[in-house]
């Protein structure tokens, strides 16, 4: 807005400034004297005056009860009957608008001379921008202070009410440090033409300035402006993501703003959790930077960032973060949690001084766990919420024992305070069962989950999101036990319910289904479902989000299964690079992709695969331990790749090491077992030890049969291998086996193309 002097020289614009407006409003507005009464209120004194009128402090004068109110005395003249009716109606709606962060409208009416007045809850405190300046608030504190205000606006929008005049002066911070939004809907109460112009210069959205009727988008714009002002008043620079959020909220074109206040709120929450925000699709470097911030800082966000990836280690995600998102936390409680975290918990963390972030984080959380006892023993509900948050994060960090303690306490405390059927209690139980999966206490888990499901369905209803999440978890439990047929059945049964699920739960179902389908050799639907999950995550969380990247892993798996090795290699190279940049080359998830890249390259007949597999095997040993079955898995596939290169000695060595790992008690998983056996059989075949090969193929088939559906290509390939061994050993039934296997295979590609080729030549009578 240009100044008065500049405007003077533009024809017809002199009178369009704030000064003239203030003149027009102040003129003719009779002042109220202390002691005067308006309805049940008696004027105490003037608090402020401005463009919209005069504000008085008043108290209830009818002896009903003591109450201080702020009375807004407006210069508007009399209303006609229709307008008056509308005014009363609106006033009634506004009086019903109850939110802890909205100063409530209590009453309103006409003075004797026709002036309008409103009485509202008096909030003693300074304007939020002055508060931010006086207390030197950092950006994080500013956002935390304003989040409830955004929520308040969303709350009102849900009731079809607009504020229309959101600005720092309308947001006051009370003695408890809570921001309250004043003047809600006052603009709406003015007659239509007045209301259209009832905004404050500098705080009006472009379309308001143009005289359009305000919409939700105008309030969103003003929220952006509010954020901007408060951040400017506070201390220090704000991150670029926050700048992007403000810019998106304040986009000139309403269609390019956040569609709702809650979308803005969600982005702000993501920002606080160091997650990428929708306003700014993150670059890799930026994402890495975010992670660097999130990981060692030890905010609960660390749990968020790590959770999904921990899960991939186990072959599938636990999605604890998901539940965090979904958790319904009472607002005050959440704030107490935040305060606890910021004041008691985070100050102990010095992010950049300590290299091994996760250990430090876990120590901090363990410390925090004790502090919950000391500090919050008188507030069981708050303590319960914090226990729940800590439990979730500790679980994400792999600290299962501590997580169990925290979750156990959360269940007890929240159960007592809110009842055992409360969503937060059920939520804690779900995480607890996930923790047990993480700790590999798989045996008891499914019973726990079933009991939890029954309780959740009873308390929340069959259609509750939490129930769908529990069902997803039950299906996932089958996956983790490597019961892929059961897993597929369970996820397939969930498919018809996806229409009612929120996007994240829906993607969860698709992902789980895709992984199980892949393991069963149903690669075409596996690819399709993984792509569906990918699309959901890209839309909701962005192309670079960890969950989106996970779906790429599922897609890559399906591509390999379909024999589309070149496509898989391209995707894997990209993923490997992305993940290395983001999490380091030795991160378990990066290693999963490194392993798969080596496998796909080897299947494509490229020698380079050996190097990737060596890297995967060595790093897995280092990160997960020599005894880990996934180490054995990489060794077995390395054996296959070496054999492909003609290095039988190297292959033998790798397979012996894999075997040794699987011999250790309790270490074996049938899936890895079958793969090691198959590769050992291949090696024996290549070494022309046909008797041993036949034995090994028999063992491999026995191990694989329970894992795969009868027509699975893996089984066909094993039969083909067995046929080769038999034929080469001079046994007559070999040829028939080969013919049947080749017939079943048809044109389907397979990684063992060399064996297929060998079988064809044998059948054709060639040497």
């Amino acid at each position, binding site marked *: 807005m240009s*100044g008065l*002097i500049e405007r003077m020289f533009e024809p017809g614009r002199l009178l369009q400034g704030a000064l003239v407006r203030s003149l027009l409003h102040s003129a003719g507005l009779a002042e109220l004297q202390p002691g005067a009464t308006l309805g049940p209120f008696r004027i105490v004194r003037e608090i402020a005056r401005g463009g919209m009128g005069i504000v008085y402090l008043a108290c209830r004068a009818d002896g009903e009860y003591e109450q201080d109110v702020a009375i807004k005395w407006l210069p508007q003249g009399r209303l006609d009957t229709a307008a008056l009716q509308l005014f009363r109606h609106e006033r009634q709606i506004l009086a019903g608008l109850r939110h802890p962060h909205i100063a409530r409208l209590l009453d309103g009416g006409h003075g004797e001379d026709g002036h309008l007045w409103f009485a509202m809850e008096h909030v003693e405190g300074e304007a939020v921008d002055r508060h931010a300046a006086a207390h030197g608030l950092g950006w994080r504190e500013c956002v935390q202070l304003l989040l409830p205000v955004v929520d308040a606006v969303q709350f009102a929008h849900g009731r079809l009410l607009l504020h229309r005049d959101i600005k720092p002066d309308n947001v006051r911070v009370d003695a408890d440090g809570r921001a309250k939004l004043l003047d809600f809907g006052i603009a709406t109460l003015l007659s239509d033409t007045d209301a259209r112009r009832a905004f404050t210069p500098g705080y009006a959205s472009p379309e308001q300035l143009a005289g359009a009727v305000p919409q939700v988008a105008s309030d969103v714009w003003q929220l952006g402006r509010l954020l901007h002002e408060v951040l400017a008043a506070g201390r220090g620079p704000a991150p670029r993501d926050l700048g992007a959020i403000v810019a998106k909220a304040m986009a000139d074109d309403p269609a390019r703003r956040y569609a709702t206040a809650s979308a803005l709120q969600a982005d702000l929450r993501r920002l606080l959790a160091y997650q990428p925000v929708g306003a700014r699709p993150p670059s890799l470097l930026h994402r890495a930077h975010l992670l660097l911030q999130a990981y060692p800082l030890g905010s609960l966000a660390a749990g968020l960032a790590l959770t999904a990836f921990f899960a991939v280690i186990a072959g599938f995600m636990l999605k604890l973060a998901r539940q965090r998102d979904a958790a319904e936390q009472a607002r005050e409680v959440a704030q107490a949690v935040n305060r606890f975290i910021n004041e008691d918990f985070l100050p102990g963390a010095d992010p950049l001084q300590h290299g091994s972030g996760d250990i430090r984080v876990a120590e901090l959380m363990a410390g925090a766990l004790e502090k919950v006892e000391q500090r919050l023993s008188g507030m069981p509900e708050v303590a319960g919420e914090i226990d729940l948050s800590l439990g979730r994060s500790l679980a994400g960090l792999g600290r299962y024992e501590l997580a169990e303690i925290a979750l156990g306490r959360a269940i007890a405390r929240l159960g007592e305070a809110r009842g055992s059927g409360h969503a937060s209690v059920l939520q804690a139980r779900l995480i607890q069962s996930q923790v047990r999966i993480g700790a590999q206490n798989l045996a008891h888990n499914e019973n726990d989950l079933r009991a939890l499901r029954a309780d959740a369905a009873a308390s929340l209803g069959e259609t509750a999101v939490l129930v769908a999440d529990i069902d997803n978890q039950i299906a996932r439990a089958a996956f983790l036990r490597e019961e892929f047929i059961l897993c597929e059945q369970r996820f397939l049964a969930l498919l018809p319910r996806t229409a009612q699920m929120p996007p994240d739960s829906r993607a969860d179902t698709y992902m789980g289904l895709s992984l199980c389908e892949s393991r069963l050799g149903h690669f075409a639907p596996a690819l399709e479902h993984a792509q569906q999950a990918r699309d959901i995550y890209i839309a909701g969380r962005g192309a670079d989000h960890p969950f989106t990247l996970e779906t790429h892993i599922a897609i890559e798996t399906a591509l390999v299964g379909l024999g589309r090795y070149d496509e898989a290699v391209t995707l894997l190279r990209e993923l490997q690079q992305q993940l290395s940049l983001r999490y380091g080359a030795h991160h378990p998830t990066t290693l999963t992709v490194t392993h798969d890249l080596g496998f796909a390259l080897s299947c494509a007949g490229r020698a380079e695969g050996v190097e990737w597999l060596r890297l995967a095997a060595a790093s897995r040993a280092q990160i997960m331990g020599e005894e880990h079955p996934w180490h054995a898995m990489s060794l077995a596939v390395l054996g296959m790749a070496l054999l492909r290169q003609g290095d039988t000695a190297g292959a033998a060595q790798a397979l012996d090491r894999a075997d040794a790992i699987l011999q250790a008690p309790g270490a074996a998983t049938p899936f890895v077992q079958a793969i090691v056996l198959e590769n050992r059989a291949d090696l024996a075949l290549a070494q022309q030890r046909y008797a041993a090969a036949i034995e090994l193929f028999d063992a491999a088939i026995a191990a694989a049969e329970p894992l795969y559906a009868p027509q699975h290509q893996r089984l066909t390939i094993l039969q083909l291998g067995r046929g080769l061994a038999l034929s080469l050993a001079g046994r007559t039934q070999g040829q028939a086996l080969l013919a049947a296997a080749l017939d079943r295979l048809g044109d389907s590609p397979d990684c063992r193309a060399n064996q297929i080729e060998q079988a064809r030549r044998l059948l054709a009578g060639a040497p």
Partner: protein
Amino acid sequence: MSQITLLLEQAHGGDEAAWQQVVALLYDDLLRLARCANTSGKANTLNATALVHECYLRIAGSGGENGIGNRSHFLALAGRAMRQILVNHARDRMAAKRGGGAEHTTLDQHDLAADREAEELLGVESVLEQLGKEDERLVRVVDCRIFGGLTEVETAEALRIPLRSVQRLWAQARERLQNLLVA
């Protein structure tokens, strides 16, 4: 002759008391008209030209045939009245701000903008005072052009001076005022 016409004649003749009465009389009218224009729902309809002309029509109309005989004369004075009204308001604001104490926290950003404009206007006013000492006609031209929203031709008519003089005086005054912007 209506009261206002009389007062206008007297004011034009240099009677300060008559001038203050003209301002007082015009004050309510100008404000009422301005408020109407401001809340008529059409964006940015409030401009000095329309306001002053409308004000003239009302006063002239109310006086019937014996209303204000000299329209251009009235318009010149109305511009001056408009300036006086705005300056008075700006002074009130500044006084309230200085004397208001801590209790009178400003209500909103709107107020800050109005305060800023009030200061600017008082800056303009002091330049005009200075200009008035050099050549009274410079101020009259500014009143017509800026605060009355009159065209150069209307201004020449209202002030009864040649168009070319108006153009020269206007250029001169404008330059002085625009220096304020740079300062």
